[in-house]
């Protein structure tokens, strides 16, 4: 993990002092509401339906056991003893007191955490692949690049008052697990024919009101030009992005209005003016960033004997076999694996954890995974470096703590925003809908038979629950004060990214599980051997689903 040096520590300390003064001024009436708004947002503080909400960055999803314990303490001391992992690898507190936020930020700073630019019209926390550095399909570890971007974007003086929020995601693997096609900027780390590292650059992806898939504006950007090129994109956006209508202010609208070609050309012109400026990365800087993400001290594991033990246990205990099958992921180092800790047990809001669970996760990380944890954008956690021989013990421990729900990647491993229970933007509740679905689909064998399905739920069109890119997406809508749910089919945020299409008129909350059942019945009836839900949907189209769901009673 990245470790702060004196520069980072000084900066974050000065940031806390600045925000403490701003909060004091606001409470004393010296800073008006409208001016305080962006100041607090750029430190992570929203004002929600019932209370303020504080969003804390977990840069590219990497969090240490020490940091988890600090978060546990903060939820106890300043909140109601729980927190929420988000779809952007961050963590949110739902009940902080505005006056206490400077103290919370000071406690976070002590463990090298912060909420800088986690909200507001600025460059947000950079996100990445939860299997960075450990997956066999990786081309290059994205994390050193993420850290370089994190530092560059932190308190960037030119880009703190953009037309709208701005999100950057980086993938270094062949399989995109960072959803780079639906970010304002998506970066794919590549190696060219000469084995040099660089980036494919996408712009203009995004969800929200006008969902869009990003378009490639640079096929191969040599790595050393990363920051000057990003600066050029941001400058073009800052100057020409729309500011007259916040719903048309994202970069995707500008890219669409100009076309990707024109946008790319404008960026190129701007970039060529700054190319080779001092912001060009040096070999020393790149090497320095990479030094923080070296392999931990892996032990040599007798894989064959381990496998014999694990197979035997799987034979005796079907629950272990199922858990290993769904929740354990292969690792680039023989004898190691990555293990999902599921935050989707039925009856708990997806992504929610209590203070004592945070501490228990820290203990698991200490014992089994070099004291590090990764946050996934599917709102689960991953222990990245687990010895195969530790799996039986870890399984028992995770089961006891409620993290062993063997449903990763299935229908009930859904992404879900906090919705109308917490969020003032929401049109409808989302957590109760998620729970109703989990209760209806509680037969694991049926879920495994359905295989990989992404179900994403958002309580409003701002799409924090990424409904457009769910294979099945559910969107809460408000019609004359009543909550309804629109269903979309066919979305994906993977390499084959696509946006879902609306099935038809929306449903009452209580109808949603029935409708889902019928959608899945069509899939089961029509699938060809080996097809996922998305494959079948793409082959047969939306019409058969539509006909079946909306068929008039005979």
């Amino acid at each position, binding site marked *: 993990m990245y470790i702060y*040096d004196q520069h980072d520590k000084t900066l974050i300390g000065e940031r806390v002092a600045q925000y403490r003064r701003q909060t004091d001024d606001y409470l004393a009436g010296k800073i008006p509401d409208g001016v305080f708004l962006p100041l607090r947002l750029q430190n992570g503080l929203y004002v929600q339906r019932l209370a303020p909400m504080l969003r804390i960055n977990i840069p590219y999803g990497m969090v240490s056991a020490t940091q988890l314990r600090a978060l546990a303490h903060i939820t106890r001391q300043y909140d109601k003893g729980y927190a929420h992992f988000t779809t952007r690898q961050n963590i949110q507190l739902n009940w902080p007191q505005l006056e206490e936020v400077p103290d919370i930020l000071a406690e976070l700073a002590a463990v090298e955490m912060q909420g800088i630019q986690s909200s507001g019209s600025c460059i947000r926390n950079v996100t990445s692949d939860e299997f960075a550095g450990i997956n066999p399909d990786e081309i290059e570890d994205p994390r050193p690049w993420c850290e370089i971007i994190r530092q560059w974007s932190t308190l*960037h*003086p*030119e880009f703190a*008052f*953009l037309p709208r929020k701005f999100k950057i995601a980086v993938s270094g693997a062949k399989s995109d697990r960072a959803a780079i096609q639906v970010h304002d900027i998506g970066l794919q780390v590549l190696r060219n024919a000469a084995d040099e590292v660089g980036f494919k650059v996408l712009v203009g992806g995004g969800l929200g009101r006008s969902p869009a898939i990003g378009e490639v504006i640079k096929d191969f950007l040599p790595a050393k030009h990363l920051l000057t090129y990003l600066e050029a994109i941001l*400058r073009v956006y*800052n100057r020409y992005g729309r500011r007259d209508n916040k719903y048309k202010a994202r970069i995707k609208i500008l890219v669409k209005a100009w076309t990707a070609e024109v946008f790319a050309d404008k960026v190129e012109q701007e970039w060529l003016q700054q190319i080779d400026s001092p912001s060009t990365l040096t070999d020393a800087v790149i090497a320095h960033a990479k030094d923080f993400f070296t392999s931990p001290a892996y032990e040599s594991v007798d894989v064959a004997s381990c496998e014999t033990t694990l197979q035997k246990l799987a034979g005796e205990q079907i629950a272990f076999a199922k858990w290993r099958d769904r929740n354990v992921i292969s690792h680039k180092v023989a004898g190691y694996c990555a293990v999902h800790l599921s935050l989707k047990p039925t009856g708990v809001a997806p992504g929610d954890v209590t203070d004592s669970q945070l501490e228990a996760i820290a203990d698991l990380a200490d014992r089994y995974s070099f004291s590090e944890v990764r946050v996934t954008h599917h709102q689960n956690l991953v222990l990245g470096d687990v010895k195969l021989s530790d799996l039986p013990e870890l399984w028992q421990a995770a089961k006891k703590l409620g993290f062993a729900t063997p449903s990763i990647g299935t229908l009930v491993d859904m992404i879900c925003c906090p919705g109308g229970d917490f969020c003032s933007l929401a049109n409808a509740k989302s957590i109760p809908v998620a729970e109703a679905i989990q209760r209806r689909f509680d037969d694991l064998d049926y879920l495994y038979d359905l295989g990989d399905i992404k179900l994403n739920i958002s309580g409003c069109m701002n799409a924090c629950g990424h409904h457009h890119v769910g294979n099945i997406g559910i969107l809460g809508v408000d019609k004359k004060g009543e909550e309804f749910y629109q269903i979309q089919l066919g979305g994906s945020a993977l390499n084959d990214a696509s946006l879902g299409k609306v099935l038809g008129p929306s449903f009452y909350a209580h109808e949603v599980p029935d409708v889902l059942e019928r959608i899945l019945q069509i899939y089961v009836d029509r699938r060809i051997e080996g097809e996922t839900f998305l494959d079948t949907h793409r082959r047969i189209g939306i019409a058969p689903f539509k006909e079946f769901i909306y068929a008039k009673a005979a």
Partner: protein
Amino acid sequence: MPKLLKDKAIVDNDWQVLPKDFSGSLPDAPCFVPLDYWLANKDQLQKPDSIGVWLDAEQEPEQLAGDIAGLQHLAVNFPSFMDGRGFSIARLIRERYQFSGELRAIGQIVPDQLFYLSRCGFDAFCLDALALDDEADDKHKLEDYLATFSVTYQACVNEQQPLFRRRHG
């Protein structure tokens, strides 16, 4: 006349900002003329000691590129403090067009933006746009807002080397 924060001190401001649609003859005092007026009349306006040019947020500093060497006073307007275009304009004026005169931020700016504004190349700030009195207490000295952070990651107008180059010699 509203005061000016300049060179880290509060000074009198005797410069007028003429309206965007200004026409007619200039006042007998130092003034910033709007960009369009400048472009139409610049041959008659070659008095850099007393005539400067101001740009609005949507205007293009590229249009001034050829004139910048002969000017000593430029101003950029912020129609709203949330409108960040002026930050980019300032960097272009300083870094691309190498302007070395006074670059003034006018319009709706707030004290907590002074640090970023100065990093982007502004060195004069119109106090009438600032919400605090110039007789501020110790915690609210305007010049202190210019020094909120002692560490900066990025290269910018007032620091040409990004931290990663300073860190690694």
